[in-house]
């Protein structure tokens, strides 16, 4: 793989993160009222900006064009010239979807849907025009400059929010900021003016250019910056907010932010005032050089700025002073500042640029990207370690060593360590459900657009962690359930209004850990299941005999029956031939269950219960015909040891057990697997009641139930092949292998003629 390919891959990985934070931010803005956090807008802007920058580097022009216009619109929001109204936010959210599509297209080398892009561009363009008259040359990509919308006098005067904000006593703190860009800052296309303007928005900013570094033209090196700025910022913003302005340039400039003591800020000594007002001249010089030009001319302005500014600055000072005079004045002021407050000024909160970046990192814990294969290998090794340890302890036991011997003690230590390691490794694979939930926001938007309903998605518990494989395989069923809820669950707007409900339907997606499983709920506040109709349809499709007596939950469960689709017209959304039966199958393939609750007029809730991980299975260790096998706990309804009176023979070999008025066929596992020893005609009577997907029940007969335990799943197919009735294998504490039974297959294959259609059992 070439270096460029690697870069490309990491760019797209980064894009995913950026798109996530973009989506998060946009939703936060649209959910919050107008008092939203400016930082959110900034982070959204930064995400789009970074995507644009990266896309530019890889020559992805389509992406750049789109991101640029997107960014332009966001920028207007950033400087407050556009309010995040509902309409605006809807467009922005859709633009976010489009951006993620475009990134996807660029990654896979596909063609983007030109019409949709053009349409979206037009919408964004309209937004940009509507809110701002100056910036309508958005198609030209100018990599070096953040487009800055004009403000009245953003630098030397206070930023607008700060000046009408609370008075100086309300948490306003004055910071002294020394900012000295290095050459690399300009080299990477950053623009000090943009940073200064961003600072000005935080509060009352005074800028002093430090022109001490300017050398005579004879010794002038145009590649080296010679300007630095001393800033004095009165703001209610925190240190973090100030530092975040410099986030992108932290290592490209010397940045020193000090908090000035209050006494000092309230009143700077009279002698100092003079110095400062003297210095204000150059400072205003800076602002007036650049800002009257409005939107910055694209192109060379920024990179050459140091040289130009230096020259003009001299003029701004009235031309009386030579370029050498500046440094002298400034040096003097510097001294007087320090001299004025020998002790108290010593920075309380002085932070250099480097610790600053560490602070930002502390907010979001540092992460590394690791290839999943490596983690899996580690998990396998740990699994083996645990098994070896169990074997070892058994060996120690058989060797007859005393339980307080050194060997045993050491082994206990190893045991604890091993289980600790196993837990930590499992935690690596565990990922928050957040990405999945985030995707659902988009599904909702699209589904809402397609059905013309107004829908709001509320998610809770998206930090709940689940095994990564589970997460990946959860997307499809969840997508389908969400679509189903929008399409079938929620009523149309007119009906909702008639029922006295808010126009906008709410779908709640929640996740939580509950007793070793992950519970995910999809609930809507729609009309609930129309059971009469469900029944009609099921009868019409021949799924149930006409007039069958069904309990409410049985009717609800008809939704999961294959071949059931309640929508009369097949809509573009659900009803694509994929029904809830597929959802149920997919969830069951993950070792989970789906249940449904519904209340007429109040809504419907689907509950998915999933195992935390696919690598470990909660099972019951059973023995029959001399073999140990594991039955997945999720399939077992109950275990029973019935009296012989309740077991009836039917025909020569068939047996059934009567359990709570239900006759359940008994399947002898030893016979089903063909491992019963010849002449062994014990009638096993330890029964495990299991239910399969179609609702069919069977009682599996075994000799002994040993215990319930978590087992590590090992593939059989890798080295052997599939065995009917066996889903996988596991390794027991003594190192022997036990097979894991697939009750579903057992029921289907052992008794294909079982006449129990799902719901007729109660007749």
């Amino acid at each position, binding site marked *: 793989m070439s270096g460029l390919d690697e870069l490309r891959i990491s760019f797209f990985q980064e894009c995913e993160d950026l798109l996530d934070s973009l989506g998060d931010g946009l939703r936060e803005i649209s959910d919050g009222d107008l008092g939203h956090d400016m930082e959110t807008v900034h982070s959204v802007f930064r995400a789009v900006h970074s995507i644009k920058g990266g896309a530019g580097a890889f020559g992805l022009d389509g992406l750049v064009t789109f991101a640029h216009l997107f960014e332009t619109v966001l920028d207007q929001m950033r400087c407050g010239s556009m309010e995040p109204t509902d309409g605006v936010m809807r467009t922005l959210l859709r633009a976010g979807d489009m951006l993620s599509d475009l990134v996807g297209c660029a990654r896979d080398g596909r063609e983007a849907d030109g019409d949709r892009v053009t349409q979206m561009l037009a919408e964004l363009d309209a937004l940009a025009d509507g809110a701002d008259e100056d910036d309508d040359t958005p198609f030209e990509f100018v990599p070096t400059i953040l487009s800055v919308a004009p403000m009245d006098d953003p630098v030397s005067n206070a930023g607008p929010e700060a000046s009408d904000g609370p008075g100086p006593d309300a948490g306003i703190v004055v910071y002294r900021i020394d900012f000295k860009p290095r050459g690399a800052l300009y080299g990477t296309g950053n623009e000090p003016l943009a940073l200064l303007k961003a600072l000005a928005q935080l509060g009352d900013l005074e800028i002093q250019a430090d022109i001490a570094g300017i050398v005579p033209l004879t010794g002038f090196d145009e590649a080296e910056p010679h300007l630095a700025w001393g800033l004095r910022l009165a703001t209610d913003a925190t240190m973090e907010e100030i530092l975040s302005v410099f986030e992108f340039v932290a290592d490209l400039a010397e940045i020193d932010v000090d908090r000035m003591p209050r006494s000092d800020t309230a009143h700077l000594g009279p002698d100092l005032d003079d110095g400062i007002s003297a210095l204000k001249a150059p400072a205003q010089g800076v602002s007036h050089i650049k800002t009257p030009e409005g939107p910055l001319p694209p192109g060379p302005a920024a990179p050459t700025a140091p040289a130009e500014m230096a020259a003009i600055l001299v003029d701004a000072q009235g031309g009386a002073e030579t370029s050498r005079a500046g440094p002298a004045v400034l040096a003097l002021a510097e001294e007087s500042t320090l001299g004025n407050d020998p002790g108290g000024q010593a920075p309380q909160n002085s932070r250099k640029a480097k610790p600053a970046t560490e602070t930002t990192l502390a907010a979001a814990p540092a992460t590394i990207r690791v290839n999943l294969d490596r983690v899996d290998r580690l998990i396998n090794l740990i699994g083996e370690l645990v098994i070896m340890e169990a074997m070892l302890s058994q060996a120690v036991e058989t060797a007859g060593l005393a339980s307080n011997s050194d060997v045993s003690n050491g082994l206990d230590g190893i045991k604890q360590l091993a289980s600790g390691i196993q837990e930590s490794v499992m935690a690596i694979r565990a990922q928050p459900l957040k990405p999945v939930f985030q995707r659902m926001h988009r599904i909702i938007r699209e589904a809402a657009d397609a059905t013309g309903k107004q829908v709001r998605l509320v998610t809770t518990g998206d930090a709940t962690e689940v095994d990564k494989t589970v997460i990946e395989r959860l997307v499809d069923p969840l997508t389908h359930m969400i679509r189903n809820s929008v399409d079938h669950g929620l009523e149309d707007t007119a009906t909702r209004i008639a029922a006295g409900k808010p126009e906008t339907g709410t779908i709640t997606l929640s996740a939580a850990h509950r007793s070793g499983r992950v519970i995910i709920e999809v609930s809507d506040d729609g009309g609930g299941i129309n059971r009469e109709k469900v029944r009609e349809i099921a009868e019409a499709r021949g799924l149930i005999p006409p007039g069958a007596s069904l309990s409410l939950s049985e009717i609800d469960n008809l939704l999961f029956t294959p071949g059931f689709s309640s929508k009369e017209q097949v809509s573009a959304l659900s009803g694509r031939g994929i029904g809830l039966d597929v959802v149920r199958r997919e969830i069951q393939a993950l070792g989970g269950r789906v249940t449904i609750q519904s209340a007429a007029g109040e809504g419907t809730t689907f509950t998915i219960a999933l195992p935390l991980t696919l690598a470990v299975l909660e099972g019951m260790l059973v023995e029959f015909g001399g073999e140990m096998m594991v039955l997945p706990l999720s399939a077992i309804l109950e275990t029973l040891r019935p009296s012989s009176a309740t077991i009836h023979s039917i025909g020569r070999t068939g047996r059934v057990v009567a359990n709570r008025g239900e006759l359940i066929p008994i399947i002898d596992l030893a016979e089903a*697997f063909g491992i019963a020893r010849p002449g062994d005609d014990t009638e096993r009577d330890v029964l495990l009641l299991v239910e399969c997907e179609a609702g069919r029940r069977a009682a599996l007969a075994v000799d002994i139930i040993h215990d319930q335990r978590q087992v590590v799943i090992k593939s059989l197919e*890798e080295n052997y092949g*599939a065995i009917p009735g066996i889903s996988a294998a596991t*390794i027991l504490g003594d190192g022997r292998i036990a097979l894991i039974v697939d009750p579903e297959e057992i029921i289907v294959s052992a008794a294909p003629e079982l006449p129990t259609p799902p719901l007729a059992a109660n007749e």
Partner: protein
Amino acid sequence: MLQNSAHDTPGRRDVVSFRVAEQDFCIDIGVVREIRGWTPTTVLPHSQDYVKGVVNLRGSVVAVVDLSARLGFGPTEPSARHIIIIVMIGDQTIGLLADVVSDILTIDDTAMRQVPDIASEVARDFISKVVTFDDGRMLRKIDLARVLPELGVELA
């Protein structure tokens, strides 16, 4: 033979020889991963009679083929003295149950002979070549591809 010795490896190969039912067999050393003692297997339901079951090979599940049964000599009653030769064929890891491993030998390709036309016997289907030695011993080279492919196919 002299001609071939100039090219050394291409014409010669190392094999692992072992005994099954009083006969000497061999397989290419390249496919052999390790040789371990017999450990009790877990019986696989619905499996061929020559599949003894599965064992735990450091965390992976490996099926064990009883070569004696497979080659038509009848099932082995395994004891602690029997060995399992772990071989890797493609991506599959398989154990071969044999009586004892005798040697690792370097055999010249020219020493390989076609299997003589003997009466049709199960074993013949699985033996690709035979090698004779001066002392009268004979090695039967097993065609693993024919011994094993049915594992997955039949049971899938």
